[in-house]
């Protein structure tokens, strides 16, 4: 008891010292060089790109089941639309294309449909891109372009049923109100297959964790495709078009695609058979302790999360010897489809000094999280074993 009190006091002093040091450093570098070359830590997020704003969640936040809205990762190609385009008085959701009855709905109209809440992981397709070797272009996301939230809204299938989908329909195109600065840049237009669109769990969300959807997360309405990567989760949604073919344009036909079969690194750019990024892959993360933390010799609680697109997590294992042997963690907390599963492990470090903790998960489809992920030209779907290195105090 007294030990832990001393430890927390020490931690507290360390934090204050760190803050003061950080403040001093901040003052020294202002205003000539406000930020170091790499990552900018501004409060609750790790900023990768200032504009359009792309930021990931510090992994320590994943000790909570739900990721708070203000810490949830942010990614878009052009940033939020002008306020006038999504003001509630003027905003409309249009449903058109291969349907019987075109719809134009206000947010109030939309809320007349049955209200559904689903807890789901939302993850950027490029999460972990920084770990691919050889390196690939794009925002160099590390571990935190992911989060788990409660999404409330209406089923896309209910809208489509009201509109009356025609037999030739195969895809549903999704368009948000966000626009590039320069009009020669292609719009971020995406589509999902009709089967995913009419899945009862695919929703159009207007609330996130019980609050109105924040602007950076797609206010007033965004698509949530549980179990699929976030390139389908269009923000600031304004137009739904039912059609026979996939959406045209760069962001559907060129970007957000992966090779059908594994290819040699740095090969296969043109001509390789590529398919859209859709379902999430099996993955786990260590939320605590954090990289570089100092831990005591007493039992240390190692905790984190694991998820798999459309399967359930069955086991999470940890290794303290670079993957030679694995020990099973305990699955805890909520167990909901599409959400992540929390896990814990009580670790008794054997020796002082540097120690690496590895983590991998297994799902109900029998898949085991791989040591590394197959290289692909855009660095999507990284799901290699997670690793945290700590120092065990003498």
């Amino acid at each position, binding site marked *: 008891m007294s030990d832990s009190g001393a430890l927390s006091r020490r931690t507290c002093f360390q934090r204050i010292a760190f803050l003061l040091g950080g403040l001093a450093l901040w003052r020294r570098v202002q205003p000539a060089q406000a930020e170091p070359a*790499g990552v900018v830590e501004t409060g609750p997020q790790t900023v990768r790109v200032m504009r359009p704003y792309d930021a990931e969640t510090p992994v320590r936040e994943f000790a909570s089941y739900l990721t708070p809205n203000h810490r949830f990762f942010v990614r878009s190609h052009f940033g939020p639309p002008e306020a006038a385009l999504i003001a509630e008085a003027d905003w409309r959701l249009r449903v058109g294309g291969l349907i019987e009855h075109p719809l134009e709905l206000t947010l109030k109209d939309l809320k007349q449909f049955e209200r559904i809440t689903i807890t789901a992981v939302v993850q950027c397709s490029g999460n972990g891109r920084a770990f691919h070797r050889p390196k690939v272009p794009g925002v160099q996301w590390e571990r935190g372009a992911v989060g788990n939230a409660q999404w409330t809204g209406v089923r896309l299938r209910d809208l489509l049923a009201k509109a009356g989908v025609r037999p030739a329909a195969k895809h549903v195109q999704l368009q948000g109100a966000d626009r590039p600065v*320069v009009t020669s840049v292609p719009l971020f237009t995406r589509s999902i297959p009709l089967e995913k669109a009419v899945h009862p769990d695919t929703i159009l969300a207007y609330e996130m964790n019980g609050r109105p959807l924040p602007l950076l997360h797609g206010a007033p309405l965004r698509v949530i495709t549980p179990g699929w990567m976030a390139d389908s989760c269009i923000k600031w949604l304004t137009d739904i078009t039912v059609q026979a073919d996939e959406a045209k344009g760069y962001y559907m036909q060129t970007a957000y695609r992966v090779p059908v079969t594994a290819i040699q690194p740095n090969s296969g750019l043109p001509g390789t058979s590529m398919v859209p990024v859709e379902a999430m892959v099996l993955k786990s993360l260590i939320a605590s302790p954090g990289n570089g933390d100092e831990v005591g010799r007493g039992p240390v609680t190692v905790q984190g999360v694991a998820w798999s697109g459309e399967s359930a997590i069955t086991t999470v294992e940890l290794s303290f010897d670079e993957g030679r042997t694995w020990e099973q963690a305990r699955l805890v907390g909520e167990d909901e489809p599409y959400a992540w599963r929390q896990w814990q492990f009580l670790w008794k470090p054997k020796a002082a000094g540097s120690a690496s903790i590895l983590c991998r998960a297994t799902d109900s489809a029998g898949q085991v999280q791989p040591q590394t992920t197959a290289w692909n030209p855009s660095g999507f779907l990284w799901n290699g074993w997670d690793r945290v290195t700590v120092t065990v105090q003498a």
Partner: protein
Amino acid sequence: MMFSRMLISVIVLGVAGGAAMTGAQEEDVVAALAPRAETLILARCSVCHTPDLVAQQRLPKDRWEATVQKMRHWGAEITEEEAGLLVRFLSARYHPGAPDQLPPLDSELRKAEPLTQEPAAEGPLVGVAVRGAGIFEHNCQACHGTGATGGFGPKLAKNPILKHEDLFWETVLHGRGPMPAWGAALSHQDIADIHAWLLTK
């Protein structure tokens, strides 16, 4: 002096042909090309995204070429010659073996001499508001919004900084917080024109 050094580096590169550069050669290329390349990145690439996106990449030359051409195709105002210069600079500085942490992209530009006197030696500049409108549109509007009404960066129309000319000039020339330094991208006349136009907003 700077251009002769650049020319020498270009010749050295030509002689070396396709062979990999040594660390020292890379440094020479970076040093010779940096003022123009960094200015282009600030003036042209940051219309759509901040330069931090550029600086976090570590790519071989062919992927830098593909990236720069993609951006030209999408409307980046870069000539063929400027694209070639950018690819040489980017692949010498941000190659796969480069260290994770490099100094910020515009650190050299920000080191410019602090402004201690009137911007022009030949007496005060007179800004031309009509010219300023166009210069603002190409260089400032992406962050400060159409009509200088604000966006990612602050609203400049009726902004008190316009009345403190020394602070205005200091900020434009050397940057401030997330705003890059424009001293190498804009002439003093350009800045005076922008200032004159902003006063009309």
